């Protein structure tokens, strides 16, 4: 459903309304038309024709690689990396197809955009507390529990 065909549909129903003499019938038609308008608007909104643009689609953006193993590698990397410019997938596929390692591509993206671009958390000074704190909590818990059990035994 394109916008133009939708508008054409509206014009057609208006013509019918003009030729209908009875007011009641016209009223009914108007109701039907408004329902149709709603339905079409919803349909049209969901159809991809609204998103169609003259924008050049980057090659590989929406095409899978021919080699399933490489496509799987590309897909795994895409899922753990932020959608850069929303067509960044094409770059990932192109580089995987050229035989690059996923982690090398991730490193390349991090070099351009920083850690922000990767969903795979890194271990460094800023993130160390996040990794270590749970271990500390578990250890403290075990130590406390040990103290409890000892006291109870006595």
């Amino acid at each position, binding site marked *: 459903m394109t916008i133009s065909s939708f508008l054409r549909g509206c014009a057609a129903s208006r013509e019918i309304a003009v030729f209908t003499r009875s007011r009641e019938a016209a009223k009914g038609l108007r109701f039907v038309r408004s329902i149709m308008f709603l339905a079409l608007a919803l349909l049209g909104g969901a159809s991809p024709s609204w998103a169609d*643009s*003259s*924008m*050049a*689609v*980057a*090659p*590989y953006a929406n095409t899978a690689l021919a080699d399933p193993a490489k496509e799987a590698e590309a897909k795994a990397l895409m899922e753990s990396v932020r959608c*850069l*410019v929303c*067509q*960044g997938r*094409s*770059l990932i596929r*192109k580089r995987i197809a050229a035989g690059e390692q996923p982690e090398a591509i991730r490193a390349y*993206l*991090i*070099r*351009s*955009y*920083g850690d*922000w671009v990767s969903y795979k958390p890194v271990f460094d000074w800023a993130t160390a507390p996040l990794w270590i704190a749970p271990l500390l909590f578990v250890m403290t818990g075990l130590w406390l529990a040990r103290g409890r059990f000892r006291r109870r035994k006595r």
Partner: protein
Amino acid sequence: VKRFWLWAPLGVFVVFVLTVAWSLYRPDDRLHPSKMIGQPFPATALAAAASDRPPFAAKTGEARLVNVFASWCVPCIAEARVLGDLAASGVRIDGVAIRDKRADVDRFLAKNGNPYRTIGLDADSSVQIAIGSSGVPETFVVDGKGIIRFQHIGEITPADVDVVLAKLREAR
């Protein structure tokens, strides 16, 4: 000593709450500056994006602005006038058209003015990703040695001109 251990959990809890509260109320920074500032501009060869301009000059030997734009980008239209004024005052501006077509770029430039010396067509955003740009428009100050010195995210408004010009002067 015993009293200290009695209060310790509460202390940890208070620190936790304060950290969370501080993070929640800290102003959110949604801009993601490029990590390529201080790094050389990639030497990727880009085809000409417009019929009346040469392909993108990867090396120029002079400080310049590299404007990342697109014919389908609405803020780029608003920015075009500011860029035109900058070009008229002698600033060298080179353009990188993202995911575009030559006919569309030609139409865009005919309508909104053409401040660019050279324009490259970055059809698959590879250069955009290599310079850490995450949208259009963005403008990079690149010095004579080809090192990226500054990144302006979003369109250059008349209010931003002074900062951009100052950064360009520093890069000279």
